[in-house]
């Protein structure tokens, strides 16, 4: 049989190989590829051993740092939870919001109290307004909706992970299968597999001499996530004082900044009003369908709380939102049982605090916003 692949042991591979660019206007012949004369199976085996050793060392390094294997909070994981509404769980309690809703509401506690595990759709660094609109437009959703409000994200319309919605709508079969494989073969086993420990992220964090006006740091790893996006604070934040301080310092970079011009202030106000109107209109649609909705302002502390009080005063933000949406809201400052929790980096609770907080919050919601059909949240 004639082979098109040359693997001659006599002649070395040619220094130049002809291509179609060398043969104008003719039928192109079957290509020929040289296999360089090397013991390839042995080379591959050595490379595999080296890869295993280096990967093992990398994994050991990150575990020693405190990392634990967990599920990766990406668009595919979010889409898996969002699809539950389309596949028969539309009557569930759904949580949207930002990272505080993720960290502070513990799904196992909620499940123990209500008998049903909520669907966690809150997203780090992302205002939930667009997600409320998405649910309002989805007739498959008939359950109950908790909207977590982190003032600096919600009222500024900041949407770090806005792309999860288009991803969910257009996710390909290949992407779905890839996530399933990853959730079985990689994520539960390798602690280093986390965007926070990726090669370029690590390189970026080195002490480079920074250019004028640049140098803002990105938020560090704070969470550990389960397969259904139940999330709790990473133990390192509570046990490592230096790391905790680093997390606070990174938040604090957003607390200062030069005073805003009048034009900027006017633009901020326009954005704030747009966010409130957009959410209020979506909530009106939901309530018209008989879906109970509640806004929740989870606790923050320290300089973070001071920043929020200064830049997003309660009366001008939270108060306006509740009035325009004509919807009940639970603000942690109004309930003694929602105060006094451990918030190590001023924004998110420890796991132990989050468990107690979830139970307290659940009872308040049940009392304040009982579902009309007599079901439980």
């Amino acid at each position, binding site marked *: *049989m*004639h082979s*098109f*692949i040359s*693997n001659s042991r006599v002649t*070395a*591979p*040619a*220094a*130049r*190989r002809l*291509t*179609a*660019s060398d*043969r*104008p*206007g003719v*039928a*192109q*012949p*079957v*290509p020929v*590829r*040289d*296999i*360089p004369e*090397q013991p*390839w199976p042995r*080379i*591959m085996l*050595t*490379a*595999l*051993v*080296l*890869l295993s050793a*280096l*990967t093992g060392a*990398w994994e050991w390094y990150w575990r020693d740092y405190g990392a634990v294997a967990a599920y990766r909070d990406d668009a595919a994981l979010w889409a898996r939870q969002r699809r539950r509404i389309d596949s028969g769980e539309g009557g569930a309690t759904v949580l949207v919001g930002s990272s505080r809703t993720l960290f502070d509401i513990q799904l196992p506690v909620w499940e123990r109290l209500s008998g049903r595990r909520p669907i966690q759709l809150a997203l780090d660094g992302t205002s939930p307004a667009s997600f409320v609109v998405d649910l309002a437009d989805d007739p498959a959703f008939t359950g109950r909706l908790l909207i977590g409000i982190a003032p600096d994200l919600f009222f500024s319309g900041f949407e770090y992970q806005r792309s999860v919605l288009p991803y969910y709508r257009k996710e*390909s*079969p*290949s*992407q779905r*299968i*890839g996530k399933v*494989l*990853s959730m079985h*073969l990689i994520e539960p086993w390798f602690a280093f597999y*986390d*965007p926070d*420990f*990726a*090669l*370029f992220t690590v*390189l970026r964090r080195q002490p*480079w001499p*920074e*250019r004028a*006006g*640049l140098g803002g740091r990105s938020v560090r790893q704070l969470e550990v996530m389960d397969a259904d996006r139940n999330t709790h604070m990473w133990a390192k934040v509570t046990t490592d004082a230096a790391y905790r301080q680093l997390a606070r310092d990174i938040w604090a970079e957003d607390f200062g900044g030069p005073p805003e011009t009048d034009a900027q202030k006017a633009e901020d106000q326009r954005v704030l009003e747009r966010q409130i109107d957009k959410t209020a209109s979506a909530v009106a649609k939901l309530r018209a369908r008989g879906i109970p909705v509640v806004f929740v302002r989870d606790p923050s502390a320290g300089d973070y709380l001071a920043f929020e009080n200064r830049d997003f005063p309660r009366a001008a933000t939270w108060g306006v939102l509740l009035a325009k949406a004509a919807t009940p809201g639970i603000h942690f400052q109004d309930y003694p049982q929602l105060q006094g929790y451990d918030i190590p980096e001023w924004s998110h609770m420890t796991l132990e605090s989050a468990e107690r907080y979830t139970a307290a919050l659940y009872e308040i919601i049940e009392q304040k916003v009982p579902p009309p059909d007599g079901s439980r949240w």
Partner: protein
Amino acid sequence: MVFNTLTFMAFFATVLVLHSLPLPWTFRKVNLLIASYVFYAAWNPPFIFLLWISTIVDWYAAQGLVRAERIASRRAWMLLSVIANLGMLLYFKYGTFLLDNFTALMASMGVHYHAPKSDIVLPVGISFYTFATMSYTLDVYLRRALPARNFLDYALFVTFFPHLVAGPIMRPTELVPQFETPRRANRQQLCFGLGLMTLGLFNKVVLADTFLAGAAERIFDRGKAPGLLDAWTGTLAFSGQIFCDFAGYSTTAIGTALCLGFCMPDNFRFPYAAIGFSDFWRRWHITLSSWLRDYLYIPLGGNRHGPARTQIALMTTMLLGGLWHGANWTFVVWGGLHGTYLIAERRLRTSFRDYRPGRLGLFGMAVLTYFLVNITWVFFRAKDFSTAWTVLRGMSGFNTTAKPILPTVFIVSTGIVVGALVALHWYMRERTLESVVARVPEPVLAVAWGLMAFAIVISQGSGNAFIYFQF
């Protein structure tokens, strides 16, 4: 399905096992065909119908061409193939673009026409497989090749998953004969093929996505005016990214085919060492440039009818080549610039027929070529002309009040990666990867392979699609 995903790894492992089973050759080819359809459908199942339409139309067109005796009949069969393929391409790829331009044209004449909002999804790889199938009927029409002897071989030529969605754009004469006899890679070929796949994925995941994409995105997508350093860093980063992304895809595709016992042609030959633009186009996306040459430039007259016709043919080919990349005028300008460069080079060659540059002169010309190629990349990468001008102003030093955009790490990583890439291209200018690899000591190869694989693992690529998928 994208090469740099877990899904592909599982898919490929399955295909490899099935292909290695001691089954009849026809059965294994059917396996490959089904696998190729699965590969395509894994992105968006309904679009598999387009693939079937293209396959069936060209199969019957080629049969008709063989049976037809009159020139008019032959032309009709050829036109059927061209119209069917280009029709699909026009609708899916250029439909919205044409409608937008028509609306703008009407508006400029005072006619306010509001086109219905369209939401046409571009089927991945349509530009590649329509060109591949068209080359089949065109080769038969031009009497360069006979039609495939059986439909299975032909359908597999169109659909064979390594080249299906982003090339190399295969010609029927390159691939159909390979399906006629049983093929299975031996251990050497399999291991070297896996090595090529690792090299390709290293280019894509580590160099393009991890080290270069970020700088290009910050300069071209954030709407800020860049200063001199930022503008050049962003553009150079893109020049590296587009090469590593696309050459990475091609290398992975070649390695994938090799693991199955098939041969695919080179698509790149160290293009950033090109001296002049005709040299660049013999090194960059070779299978597209040679396709355009054989089926567009030469039929337009090529260089057979004097300098004026040659220049018109060149410019037309490059403008359409630009448009092939995307439905945007920025791509047309990109093609137009390359057409202008090629015409200018031809004129200079005629004017300085006896000039023989020394080594330094050649190096200078290579640097000039790379510089001018980078100018064209600005139009290729920018989403609109406003962004392109802003970046070009920055590259010319005119954005004097610009504030820094890129953190130091982006500048350093772009400098190192692109510097090393261009140096490597220069070293490899007259060599092939295989000729160099054959002389490298075994331990060095093993360590390099292991390190590349490790870098892929720790980069944690998120399965970003290859840039050329959008074309």
